[in-house]
């Protein structure tokens, strides 16, 4: 693997590339990136199976397969798995693989902590999943953990909270590492405004993580003391305030939404210029738009709580602030389209996923704008319209961007090309089924179907059936992705260093696969 000779003592790990110790004790950014990405994929399968349990029960009206309590626990766990187990680790995996190569560094700034931040995760999620087998079942109060309901959880509650603390710990350490790497290890000459957008979006994401994960930690710790130590933070009977938890949760939760999407913007901003053979339009405005979105994310949280009974002034403030987010988000979409405009486009798999991202993420953005309007949100709130909205921004949004990133950088990582024909089929199957799953949810939501119910009235039956068919199709299509990735890792057409005709950036100056330690001598930045 190593083409660059070094005398660095870390090199000894790669001499036993197949030993378990390599993975347990690794401090190498590429190995850790790989671990994060595989972990994310395994969680994607587990969270996906939970989604299919939900969709199977909802295939037709009536209770057929699962108990309502278990159904609630599936919706709760599906969300926790997908958010904390799939999207966040996948982005951290991409950050590990790419940021050192993109800024011209040898490795991440804090390699030992890097190892720890990954290896916390399998234990955290093992603990989270184990709660499904505990007395009283897994958490079933929704991933938002609203009290008083969440305090009715059985033995699972302390384990759920402890494992979420671990996940937060891992995220914060990952974020510190990203910031330390970006701020300290850039190659000479790479000023902040010369950094690739993926690096920029991750830098901002990392600050969001450090700002809000402790808020979540505080909120869930208060739940713990309410349950076990006699406090009444959220207990009205004891002088507490159940709504305060919602404010704390969404003060974390809304920036979290952007934690789940900003790195996608970075990925798409890398892919579009390559396949349009034209530089990214409006680089500076992309950076400022990302910063604006991050800032706004801190002042819009209560739009998740319009029905909670806020004063009119509060509702107006959060409505206006939320609507403002459309401006920087629009700027991004316009910039991507201007990048394509008068380019010379080709449509390899990463480009297809990036284009799918732009269109379907925008659909989620449009429904987001509709949801921002408080008086109408009273009708949308807690219905399948909301479910459709956030799945559009998360599945053909974040997940498509992650898949696009894997196709785009996989040849660089493993040195082999993936199968282009099958990759395109994977894209079209995913796109068709993702729309079949989530588009009908807009209809049932508007027609009055609340979310998080295991059984529903007869007028919602047709579209629920379609959504279930779509969900199974989408799930099985991802096995094709697994096959493609494994096949490319095991062999195939050799990739050149540049891989893509017009790819620009430091990572493309390294060999494919790149040396174990990315840049042992800093590259020269033009």
């Amino acid at each position, binding site marked *: 693997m190593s083409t660059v000779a070094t005398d660095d003592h870390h090199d000894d790990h790669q001499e036993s590339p197949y030993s378990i110790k390599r993975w347990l004790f690794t401090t190498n950014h590429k190995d850790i990136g790989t671990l994060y990405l595989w972990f994310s994929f395994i969680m994607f399968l587990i969270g996906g199976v939970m989604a299919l349990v939900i969709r199977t029960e909802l295939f037709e009206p009536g209770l057929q397969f699962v108990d*309502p309590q278990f159904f609630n626990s599936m919706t709760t766990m599906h969300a926790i798995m997908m958010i904390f187990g799939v999207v966040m680790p996948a982005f951290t995996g991409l950050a590990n693989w790419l940021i050192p190569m993109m800024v011209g560094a040898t490795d991440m700034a804090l390699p030992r902590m890097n190892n720890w931040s990954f290896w916390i995760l399998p234990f955290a999620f093992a603990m989270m999943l184990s709660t499904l087998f505990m007395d009283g079942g897994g958490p079933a109060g929704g991933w938002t953990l609203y009290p008083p309901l969440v305090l009715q959880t059985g033995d699972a509650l302390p384990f759920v909270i402890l494992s979420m603390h671990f996940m937060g710990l891992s995220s914060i350490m990952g974020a510190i590492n990203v910031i330390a790497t970006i701020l300290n290890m850039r190659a000479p000459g790479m000023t902040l405004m010369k950094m690739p957008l993926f690096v920029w979006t991750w830098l901002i994401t990392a600050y969001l993580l450090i700002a809000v994960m402790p808020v979540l930690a505080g909120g869930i710790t208060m739940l713990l003391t309410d349950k076990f130590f006699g406090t009444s933070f959220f207990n009205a*009977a004891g002088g507490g305030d159940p709504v305060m938890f919602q404010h704390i949760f969404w003060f974390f939760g809304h920036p979290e939404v952007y934690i789940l999407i900003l790195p996608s913007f970075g990925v798409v901003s890398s892919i579009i210029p390559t396949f349009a053979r034209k530089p990214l339009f409006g680089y500076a405005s992309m950076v400022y738009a990302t910063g604006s979105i991050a800032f706004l994310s801190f002042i819009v949280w209560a739009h998740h709580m319009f*029905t909670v009974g806020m004063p009119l002034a509060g509702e107006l403030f959060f409505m206006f602030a939320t609507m403002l987010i459309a401006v920087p988000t629009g700027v991004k979409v316009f910039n991507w389209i201007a990048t394509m405009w*008068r380019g010379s486009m080709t449509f390899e798999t990463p480009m297809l996923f990036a284009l799918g991202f732009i269109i379907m993420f925008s659909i989620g953005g449009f429904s987001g704008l509709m949801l921002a309007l408080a008086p109408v949100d*009273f009708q949308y709130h807690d219905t399948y319209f909301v479910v459709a909205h956030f799945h559009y921004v998360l599945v053909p949004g974040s997940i498509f961007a992650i898949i696009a990133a894997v196709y785009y950088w996989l040849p660089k990582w493993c040195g082999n090309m993936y199968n282009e024909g099958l990759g395109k089929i994977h894209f079209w199957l995913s796109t068709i089924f993702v*729309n079949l799953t989530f588009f009908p949810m807009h209809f049932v939501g508007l027609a009055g179907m609340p*979310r998080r119910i295991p059984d529903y009235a*007869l007028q919602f039956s047709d579209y629920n059936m379609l959504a279930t068919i779509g969900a199974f199709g989408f799930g099985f299509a991802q096995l094709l992705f697994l096959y493609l990735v494994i096949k490319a890792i095991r062999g195939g057409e050799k990739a050149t260093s540049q891989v893509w005709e017009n790819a620009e950036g430091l990572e493309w100056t390294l060999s494919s696969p790149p040396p174990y330690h990315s840049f042992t001598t800093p590259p020269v930045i033009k």
Partner: protein
Amino acid sequence: MSGNNWLKWLSAVSVMFAAMGAANAGQPINMPVGVTDISADVFDLHMIAFWLCVWIAVAVFGVMFYSIFAHRKSKGHTPATFHESTTVEAIWTTMPFLILIALAIPATTTLVAMEDTSDYDLTVKITGYQWLWHYEYIDEGVDFYSVLKTPRDQINGLAPKGDNYLLEVDKELVLPVDKKVRFLITANDVNHAWWVPDLAVKKDAIPGFINEAWAKVHTTGTYRGQCAELCGRDHGFMPIVVRVVEQAEFDQFLADNTTLLNDGAEYAAVAE
């Protein structure tokens, strides 16, 4: 991918959407206009926002698809090199602002009207329980619990499902037509949310809080809704049914039901 393939896939996608449309003859796909002035305003706002999004999407994706079809390498298009334009960027930052302001004005007007609970004719206190509703006509001395009426056999697939499957209760909330009814909404155990789409009222029911909402229904009839905030195992099984009647019939309803006054004994029986 060649042009032919594109067309093939595009037609596959359109067939899929057409199938989605055809699959449902008769099942609702949009928000109800409802039966209050407010619900009609909300519906209008919803449709304005929807069409606005559609037109923006057509314009933006139109440009994008034109570019995808015209500016492709297989057509021998050579790439331009431009990568910024302050004018264009200023325009597409300002334009959305103006559109948002246009949208914010009707939204604000409607919101202000919805939050104005003054000058009401009647007050109903609504309390959510796991998993039923309690209604109390505060000044009339009438109160009762309202529980799902759908038989267990229908839910478990042992009997054919009725027309109002899961949306039927033993005792409906009866309201007079054309009267401004104020709802005081709270809960006794965990959070619930009282939602009737036709009234455009959805408000969380939270222990320790009393939230206000109101509706002035202009058409008699029966309107159905559900609990909209996850409240535990049977969250999907605590529907809301509102029957709006003429004033005379409402008076009769009150007269007939004053005997329903209870001290919780009935709740205990119902909760069995």
